């Protein structure tokens, strides 16, 4: 994958498959510390100790459609290859937390890429899931809690054109304002 925002979309698919009803996605970029950190936390089915031990191994998956699970190994490799860190913790019946830390300035660090497209699709395609998204660049922070959207919209769905477009533009403008032209 050539964008970290694609890894994020993929890792969140695991949370969705694990029947999470609440997923938080946090991106924290600290250029002074030279770190880009991602935390994806869900309240899905979680994994047993046994499963958790195997999950970073590409030959492990619980899917039956294919013999290897590559999502987590890809994400881990992307982080580790910059000299960063990667960790998963999980408890059966409670949920899972995936953390990846990239060295921001490392030449092998993928760009974040189109995070707006990732978040817009996740939010509009999974209305029954509560998403909490936070984007932090140095001292500036943007967050979007889909509970607030629901509260305003009542029973109007997220995927009606006016609402969907608003969410897309809102995400886009907020990121642009924080990034001030920097390419992340």
């Amino acid at each position, binding site marked *: *994958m050539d964008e970290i925002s*694609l890894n994020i*979309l*993929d890792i969140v*698919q695991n949370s*969705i*498959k694990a029947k999470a009803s609440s997923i938080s996605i946090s991106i924290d970029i600290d250029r002074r510390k030279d770190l880009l950190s991602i935390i994806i936390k869900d309240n899905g089915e979680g994994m047993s100790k046994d499963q958790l031990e195997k999950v970073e191994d590409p030959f492990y998956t619980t*899917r039956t*459609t*294919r013999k290897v*699970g*590559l*999502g987590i190994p*890809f994400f881990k490799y992307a982080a580790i290859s910059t000299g960063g860190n990667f960790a998963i913790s999980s408890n059966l019946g409670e949920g899972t937390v995936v953390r990846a830390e990239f060295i921001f300035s490392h030449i092998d660090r993928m760009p974040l890429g*189109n995070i707006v*497209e*990732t978040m*817009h*699709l996740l939010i*509009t*395609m999974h209305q029954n899931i509560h998403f909490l998204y936070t984007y932090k660049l140095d001292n500036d922070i943007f967050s979007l809690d889909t509970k*607030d*959207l629901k509260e*305003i*919209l*009542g*029973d*109007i769905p997220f*995927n*009606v*054109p*006016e*609402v*969907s477009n*608003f969410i897309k*533009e*809102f995400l886009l*403008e*907020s990121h642009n*304002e924080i990034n001030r032209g920097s390419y992340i």
Partner: protein
Amino acid sequence: MKSLDELREIRERMQSQVSLRSEDHTQTRVVVGMATCGIASGARPILAALAEAVQEKKLDNVTVTQTGCIGLCQYEPVVEVIEPNKEKVTYVNMTVEKALEVVDLHLIKKEPVIKYTIGAVTDSAARRK
């Protein structure tokens, strides 16, 4: 800068005119595979383009959704079109351009784009052997 106040205005404008979607059994479903293979081979922009095209063209009887692994890794990105009372059509090796053709031809004109279907792609691969 946009704020959530703008969403309140949208809500107020819409409240009077929200027409409920047609019944589920009359909906055509367009499903994009979003497992690792799909995402790595370009499914995200395809899902975004399909969702946008269906909105723009006001295809109220079409719902665009995503699913996990369809089990066709080597043919990703995969898009399935499921029309009520018809056999599912599976499009493989999709691109944004091909997906938009499927919108115009299959979803609007009701003519499936045979050349992009899994049957056509596996047939021509077999012939090459």
